[in-house]
């Protein structure tokens, strides 16, 4: 199961009237990973998650979770039986008390973990008798996490789990996710536009831009393969047509030419020598830089 894929989409497309939310999104999430799904607002993160959970139907393409077709009713129920989900708005039943919604949710899952339920009730200090609508946003998020964790789910899908939370609660939530995954064979797929939190807890990342995955891979691999080659010239930097594969973006700023590469510096350095720079430097890049360079468009 170590190398098997929990989530797999191929050329996934979704059109809402005249808006193309997904334009051929292909994604792979291996079992046991914590995969951050990064993208700007409106990039297609929530649409992808909704398709994976059977809440929206793809216009074309394939989406499979645990090898099951997400767009078919019966397999979708089977997927949801093995998946915990926290929505961006932390939608829960406002009219129920904490205890009622816990009992309600537990009834759908034969492998409901009462031990986890009790542990997280204590850890999150959730008041059992309080109505959901009376909970703060932070408490609501914690309750949503409790309901997702206690399902005994093999996959957690979290849509912007920390959105709208203060830094203290954000840290608590992130630690809770990491702590939970450490003690269970669970795959986590969480969307975010907060690069720092993806950097903090994810071991894989997929950057979605304009409805398709622009960058994907293990975070360590990305850190190793992505780099910036900076060249300083004794004149205005030339406008080179670099043929080396992996050039993500080239930027000229006076005498400085900066090239972001997704395939290491070697090829670019070979080409750069021919340009005659005064100095050449290879600089490591952060996830934030990779993200910004990937999603930044000249328009």
């Amino acid at each position, binding site marked *: 199961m170590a190398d098997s894929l929990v989530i797999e989409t191929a050329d996934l497309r979704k059109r*809402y009237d005249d808006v193309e939310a997904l334009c051929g999104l292909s994604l792979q999430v291996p079992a046991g990973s914590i995969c951050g799904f990064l993208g700007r607002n409106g990039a297609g993160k929530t649409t992808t998650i*909704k398709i994976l*959970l*059977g*809440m*929206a*139907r793809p216009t074309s393409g394939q989406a499979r979770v645990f090898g099951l077709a997400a767009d078919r*009713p*019966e397999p*979708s*129920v*089977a997927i*949801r*039986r093995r*998946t915990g*989900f926290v*929505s961006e*708005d932390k*939608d*829960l*039943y*406002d*009219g*129920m008390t904490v205890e009622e919604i816990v*009992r*309600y*949710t537990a*009834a*759908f*899952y034969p492998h409901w973990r009462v031990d986890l339920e009790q542990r997280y009730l204590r850890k999150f200090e959730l008041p059992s008798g309080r109505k959901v609508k009376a909970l703060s946003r932070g408490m609501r998020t914690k309750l949503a996490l409790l309901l997702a964790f206690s399902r005994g789910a093999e996959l957690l899908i979290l849509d912007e789990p920390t959105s709208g939370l203060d830094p203290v609660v954000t840290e608590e939530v992130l630690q809770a996710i990491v702590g939970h995954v450490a003690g269970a064979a669970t795959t986590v797929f969480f969307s975010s536009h907060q690069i720092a939190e993806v950097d903090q807890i994810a071991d894989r990342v997929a950057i979605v831009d304009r409805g398709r995955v622009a960058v994907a891979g293990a975070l360590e691999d990305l850190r190793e393969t992505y780099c910036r080659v900076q060249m300083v010239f004794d004149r205005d930097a030339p406008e080179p047509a670099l043929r080396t594969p992996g050039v993500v973006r080239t930027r000229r700023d006076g005498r400085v030419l900066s090239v972001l590469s997704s395939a290491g510096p070697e090829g670019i350095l070979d080409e750069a020598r021919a340009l005659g720079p005064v100095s050449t430097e290879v600089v490591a890049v952060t996830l934030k830089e990779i993200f910004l360079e990937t999603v930044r468009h000249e328009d």
Partner: protein
Amino acid sequence: MLWYKSWLDTRSRFLVGLVLLVLSACGTVFYYPQVLKLMPMASTIEASGDLGRRIREGVALASNYRGYIWSQWMRQAMTNLATLFAVLLGSGGLFSRASGDSALFTLSLPASRTRVLGVRAATGLAQLLALAVIPALFLPLLSPGVGQSYSPTDALVHGVCLFVAAATFFSLALLLSTVFTDLWRPLLIACGVAIALSLYEAALRGQSTYGIFRVMSGEDYFRTGRLPWLGLFSSVTASAAMLFTATRTLARQDF
């Protein structure tokens, strides 16, 4: 547990409806002595045209207790209130984004949309049946209090006719709730359809043998002792068709 959630969603509407309909049944029964006192005055009223016809018909029906109950309660109060509460019970629901509930939380649970809608429909129909039958059963219980009697069989038959016909409006409201994401359009459109049908039937002045409100009031049973089988069958068919369409609509919907 879907049943429990469905009950929580609709219980206030159901309980308000039940209390109102029971109070209306009680009021109708206990007002009968006043009607008897006013009966001698009715013959002195001079009115012509449609109004006169209606008054004479009302007086004739109220001359006996069974006719009074049917004309005042079954045909008027009960049909209006039952239609209203059928629409109210059918509007909104587990996937309604306007009801303040969380569609995404429900959709993330391992239950098919068909099952969720089926439970929602079954809960609403059970409540509608209770609204139709329980207040009607108060009639035979309370009638001895005014020195009258009312057949429990009549009460049951009228309750069932009312339920079957009102279920059509319930199904319409439920179908509309799967089409529109807000709470008000299903409610207003279903009420609009009910008002249009009642005006149409009123314009036909009783010539419409199978009108839905005629079926709902059990007029054929009251006048002839026979059940309006064709009307009942038509209502059941229309309800089933709308519930099926609601299921198909919901299956295709994106959230």
